[in-house]
């Protein structure tokens, strides 16, 4: 049977899910963790501990630094050694709390038992507050604070919750393993989110290259359905494997056959998308009082002999994880945090993991080195591959010609930076590199225009008021 998928573009970059049979293992606690205060989109958190403080596992060490921000919790017990700018995985300075580990003492409030708590609390507001307190952010990669996403702006209603279990990037298997090993918890998490949103339907979308995960969730659902009415509306939807199915806009298109307007939000078409790992984190923080300080990471790559899915504490230096698994392989030429399509190259192995870190990949020179640029032969493969229906070859040319107006007309700002164009280009043109610049340029123009429009509106309003005051 032909499976559903998104309507335009997309590529098949091979599966490479070589670690899919590796169980999620708990990794040892490192001697020192570096917990970044900027692990989410938006303002960095404000530290609430000072150097020398003793902290326990799960204790709050950072408070939201604004509306769009999140709590940060300690992932270890020990002493705060320093709070300063430290280099992250990509060698950029981020405010970071350094904690020297002493033992492993958890907060007493955290329920560390394995028993499944399937009863959904009645009070949605309380659940939302717990999600906020638990410091949960979108773990699909964007690290958007979850409590913000779960509070739709007034006037917008959610019709469907989509739990994103696509994991469409090659190599990564952490979500697959989570669905197979902790499916029940994910489903409860989904039910909790569903309850918060007050929506009748929820779909757990899983690509069909994960049959075990699909089966497991179906089994779990049949068991849970009788327990609480919240489970009734949850369904599993197998999708055809295609990259970038896990992209929010593509997933909404695939599941609901609706398209989010340019510049719009998923909620505009009645959808809220949450990742599998996020659902699990919601379950843990709401039902078990365990805030988000641990996440599953896939460590993989053909040249890396000890592929694994590991559960690590947030803030663990990458080098510690890699050393635990046998060290950096000799022939690795590039280390990537995230998937091979959208992940970031790591330059600083001393950088810590973040909440949103999903994988560490090792690629060899043959796999990753770009070939010399050729000439565009106008084959149009990039346009066929673009899941946003853009024409990368055109944007590339327009950016080089410096035509910002045409870039805006041709929707450079809609680029989701999935990398399909660069992946496909037979001439090895750096399409995405250039389109990202173009996107930035157009976004800047749009922002400036919005600011100007707002200022003009305010000026007009002030003028009208002044005139009104005069007449009175």
């Amino acid at each position: 049977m032909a499976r559903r998928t998104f309507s335009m573009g997309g590529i098949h970059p091979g599966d490479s899910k070589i670690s899919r049979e590796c169980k999620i293992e708990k990794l040892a606690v490192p001697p020192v963790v570096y917990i970044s205060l900027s692990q989410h989109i938006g303002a960095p958190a404000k530290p609430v501990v000072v150097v020398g403080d003793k902290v326990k596992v799960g204790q709050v060490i950072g408070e939201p630094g604004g509306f769009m921000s999140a709590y940060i919790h300690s992932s270890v017990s020990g002493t705060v050694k320093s709070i300063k700018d430290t280099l992250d995985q990509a060698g950029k300075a981020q405010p970071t709390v350094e904690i020297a580990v002493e033992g492993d003492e958890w907060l007493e409030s955290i329920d560390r038992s394995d028993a499944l708590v399937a009863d959904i609390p009645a009070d949605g507001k309380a659940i939302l507050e717990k999600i906020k307190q638990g410091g949960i952010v979108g773990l699909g990669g964007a690290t958007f604070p979850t409590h913000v996403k779960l509070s739709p702006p007034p006037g917008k209603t959610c019709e469907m919750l989509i739990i994103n279990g696509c994991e469409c990037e090659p190599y990564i298997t952490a979500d697959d393993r989570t669905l197979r090993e902790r499916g029940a918890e994910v489903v409860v998490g989904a039910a909790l989110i569903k309850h918060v949103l007050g929506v009748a339907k929820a779909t757990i979308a899983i690509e069909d290259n994960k049959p075990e995960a699909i089966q497991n969730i179906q089994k779990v659902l049949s068991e849970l359905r009788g327990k609480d009415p919240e489970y009734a509306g949850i369904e599993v939807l197998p999708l055809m494997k295609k990259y970038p199915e896990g992209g929010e806009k593509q997933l909404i298109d695939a599941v609901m056959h609706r398209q989010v307007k340019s510049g719009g939000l998923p909620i505009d078409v009645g959808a809220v998308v949450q990742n599998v790992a996020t659902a699990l984190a919601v379950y843990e923080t709401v039902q078990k009082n365990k805030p988000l300080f641990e996440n599953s990471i896939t460590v993989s790559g053909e040249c890396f002999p000890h592929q694994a899915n590991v559960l690590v504490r947030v803030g663990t230096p990458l080098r510690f994880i890699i050393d635990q698994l046998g060290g950096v392989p000799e022939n690795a030429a590039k280390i990537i945090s995230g998937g091979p399509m959208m992940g970031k190259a790591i330059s600083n192995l001393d950088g810590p993991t973040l909440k949103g870190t999903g994988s560490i990949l090792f690629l060899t020179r043959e796999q990753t080195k770009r070939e010399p640029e050729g000439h565009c032969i106008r084959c149009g493969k990039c346009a066929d591959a673009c899941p946003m229906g853009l024409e990368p070859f055109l944007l590339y040319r327009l950016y080089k010609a410096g035509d910002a107006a045409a870039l805006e007309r041709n929707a450079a700002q809609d680029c989701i930076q999935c990398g399909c164009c660069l992946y496909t280009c037979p001439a090895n043109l750096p399409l995405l590199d250039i389109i990202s610049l173009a996107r930035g340029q157009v976004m800047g123009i749009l922002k400036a225009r919005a600011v100007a429009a707002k200022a003009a509106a305010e000026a007009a309003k002030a003028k009208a008021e002044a005139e009104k005051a005069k007449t009175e």
Partner: protein
Amino acid sequence: MTSTIIWTIVIITALGLLLALALYLVAQRFKVVEDPRIEEVEKVMPGANCGGCGFAGCHAFAEAAVKAPNLDNNFCPVGGNEVMKKVAAILGYEVKEKAPMVAVVRCNGTCENRPRIYEYDGTKSCKTKVGVAPDTLCRFGCLGCGDCEAACQFGAIKVDPVLGIATVDETKCTACGACVKACPRGLIELRYKGPRGMRMFVACRNLTKGAEAKEACDASCIGCGICYKTCQHGAIQFLNNVAYIDYTKCKLCRECEAMCPRGAIHGVNFPKPLDKAAVKARVLERQKKAREAEAAAKAAEASAEKPVEKKED
């Protein structure tokens, strides 16, 4: 036969006249009346249309110059004082002479001073590279992808393949400022060209603290502050762990260059090479004397005003 030829000539001539008339009428109808001085001014402009003056091109500058009541806000950096004198002569304005400027790349992170520890594999654009992990330990230095080179219309700035950083050919640089805008690291600055091209500048923008800056590059400013203490002209500013020489105050004494333990301060186009040891000895001697004098003054002050507690800062 003859009649055909005659008719052809007649018709073609008539057609030509008719079209000429049409062209004339159209030209009259759509004639744009422009101040003739604009054209005159434009003629003396360099014609590079680089936008360094802040206008869209030489014509726009000429228009603005003709409309403006004086030339205070309009200056062509490319043409410099020469051209501005001509413009002033045409318009009958006074022109304030400006010191010629030149673009300076404030980075000394050559491949030798700052080893490339990673291999960058993206498109050759500083704007892209700046978003990726840096290929050296320095997060502030020249990226070497040549966005400035692409922006320069005069071929004056080039990324040196051996050094790995951008270098300015000051004979070609017109100080239009295009490279300043192009550099995503903000390394390029327009500075006074200086008498006979002599000028001083700090060739580093590394804002990290000493130890890290030292690790990043062999010629980095580590923010030790020695130059600040050395300078007698108040030309050196000190902010965010990095020194900056104010070119309006610098007297080109080269003492800071001699004193800098990192070789981060550069003096260029000086006729004689700097005798570091001699200058250093001179400065140290002066500083020693100053310290002694200060101590003596303090002692004297202390003995004179003993009863009154005065705070020194």
